[in-house]
């Protein structure tokens, strides 16, 4: 048989439709737009999700998969990320007084791509290139929350316990990641090291994909109130820096 294969044509049409839409689409919208029966569209979408050309979010809406977008292009260069984040990471450290760091997902870990010292303390070493645990740091949890690939990698195995506060249960971390997606930022309090806290937020590229995380780390007393909730002003600074770095990648630009 040499003619066109109908299901491939239809799958391609679905990908094209999703790629042309700003917002994720529901099954009914997709079926209606392409004049397909819902059951047909559902079957096609299921296969497209399996091969990661399409992603389904928690609300049941579909969008083009990250893997498909990255076909033929190379992943973000850590040095490129640092160059673009430089000015705003400085500003974040200057505004909060805390150490500011930028991290990205690499081969199963969160890797520090950039580090600016905290104000005042004397003995600090550059942590650039260091790997930090994805499930026990604010920077790492942001990456897990917004990167399904990273989450799959990490949650397929056991989560090592680093302190008595480390989240090690699969169901607990899934709840935590959902909360992080809702809040748009992550907090970790003594989950990696005693007396160490972190606040982090996602850095998005032009298409809205989370390519990195940016945040601050410091003592629990410096970053949190007496009930271990992060200070609102510090949270706002982290979110502001994340928006500014995202803008360097074209996110939120109208032109």
């Amino acid at each position: 048989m040499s003619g066109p294969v109908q299901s491939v044509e239809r799958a391609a049409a679905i990908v094209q439709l999703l790629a042309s839409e700003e917002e994720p689409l529901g099954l009914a919208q997709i079926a209606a737009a392409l004049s397909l029966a819902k059951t047909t569209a559902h079957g096609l979408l299921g296969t497209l999700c399996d091969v990661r050309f399409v992603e389904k979010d928690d609300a049941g809406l579909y969008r083009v998969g990250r893997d498909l977008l990255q076909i033929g292009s190379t992943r973000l260069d850590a040095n490129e990320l640092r160059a673009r984040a430089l000015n705003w990471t400085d500003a974040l450290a200057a505004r909060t007084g805390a150490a500011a760091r930028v991290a990205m997902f690499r081969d199963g870990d969160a890797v520090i791509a950039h580090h600016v010292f905290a104000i005042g303390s004397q003995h600090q070493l550059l942590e650039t290139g260091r790997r930090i645990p994805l499930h026990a740091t604010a920077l790492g949890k942001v990456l897990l929350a917004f990167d399904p690939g990273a989450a799959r990698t990490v949650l397929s195995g056991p989560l090592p316990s680093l302190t008595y506060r480390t989240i090690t249960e699969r169901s607990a971390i899934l709840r935590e990641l959902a909360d992080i997606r809702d809040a748009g930022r992550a907090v970790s309090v003594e989950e990696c090291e005693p007396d160490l806290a972190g606040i982090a937020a996602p850095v998005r590229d032009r298409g809205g994909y989370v390519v990195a995380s940016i945040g601050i780390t410091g003592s629990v007393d410096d970053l949190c109130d007496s009930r271990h909730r992060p200070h609102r002003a510090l949270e706002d600074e982290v979110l502001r820096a994340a928006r500014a770095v995202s803008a360097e990648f074209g996110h939120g630009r109208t032109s």
Partner: protein
Amino acid sequence: MSESYVAAIDQGTTSTRCLVFDHQGRLVSLAQQQHTQHFPRPGWVEHDAAEIWRIVRRLLPEALRNGGLDASQIVSLGLTNQRETVVVWDRLTGEPVTPAIVWQDTRTGPLLPRIAAELDATSIHERTGLPLATYFTGPKLRWLLESDEDLRRRAEAGELLLGTMDTWLLWNLTGGVRGGVHSTDVTNASRTMLMNLQTLQWDPELLAVMRVPRAALPEIRPTLGDHGTTTDPVAGIPVRAVIGDQQASLFGQTAFESGEAKCTFGTGAFLLLNTGTQPVASSHGLVTTVAHQIEGEPTVYALEGSVAIAGALVEWCRESLGLIRSPAEIETLATSVDDNGGCFVVPAFAGLYAPHWESRAQGIVAGLTAYITKGHIARAVLEAVALQTQEVLAAMNSDAGLALRSVAVDGGMTSNNLLMQTVADLLDVPVVRPMMAETVALGAAYAAGLAAGYWSDQQVLRRQWHRAAEWSPAMEPARRAEMLERWSRAIELSVAWGRPRARTTDADPAVPPAGLAAAHGRRVEDG
């Protein structure tokens, strides 16, 4: 009451930025755009001053918009700029009449001996603190005015205005053809080779040698002071500081005292040492320059080690060779190998500046074998930046008679960790980056804010300096010595390659690019 801020326009060699800072010296908003580099012949580098002004007009409102700010919240504007680059424009139309000749341009090479024949290089150095080199504005102006009879006539008739980039932008910002301020500041004027370093005024003999009519030149004003008020693209912002970019970054690093230094890694690399209120003459190939002048206070001077090509070499790898897609990728490529594999790159694109001052030197890649990959070349590129910095630091230490114990660095290239580590390794001192890599813009903002009373004194600014990162030397002394030895041999080769050929082969059609510049020099003589 809404908060107030200071703004800086940083007109650099490859891009222009507009930044807004708050009372703690923290970045609030930023807008930036690159402009076109024109390379019409080997050794020639030109900018379109009209394009640069269009970019400034766009960026200032954009920076305000990005920060959600109103012009009335900007209490003072500082203007900082690529130095030495010359702009000539029509007083009545406001249009540039020639391309801007950029500081890196070497077309005046063949002209230098004729200048020296009229006023010897030693005398020029004594008056200006500058070695007779293609780098500075004076020879560029003489070349322009000699290459076009009409231009010279119009300049002498008072129809044209001359200036460095600061002067061009200030004139446009403050009204242009409708009463724009035609002035410059002492730091920029000290780079023209037309200003006497003692009197801080245009030197009549130097003007005669460079063929520059006094009436076409701007007034020289103190760095911090009243430079007028903007009318375009946003009206009503007082311009309270005009300062050359390298002096601005010295100010931004809060190196206010004698003995304090910084090194900026931008298009070129520039090591400046504050020498206090007396100009210090270098005996090791450094430039004596004005650091800044506050109205009513003694002038502060600096020694400068100027390296023409630093970031420009990385940019060349991207734009001309296609080795990388973005400047940051040079680090990725360089870390794909452990060392340079024996390869050295001497980027003498604009001849060699400090401490050699060999205007005719040309770039070379030495040590090529089949083993060399693009990773090795990327590594050699970064090492070339560090090795040139080492040379000017050594000259600085010799001149100052003491060794700097650490180096404060800034500029976009400080995001390159491998480069910063290599600088620490080869200089054998810790390298420290402050919490604001854009120190050029910060320095212009500091100067403008101080002049406007936004900050009370320099001590306030000093307290805002914080360490963002530090790299410690980790290279074996033997390895360092070997690197320096091989580098000095590569420098010798680069100088030798640029030397004119022996007379008998002058007519050889296959002359290297130097031949073009020489041919052009003859054309100038004929005119």
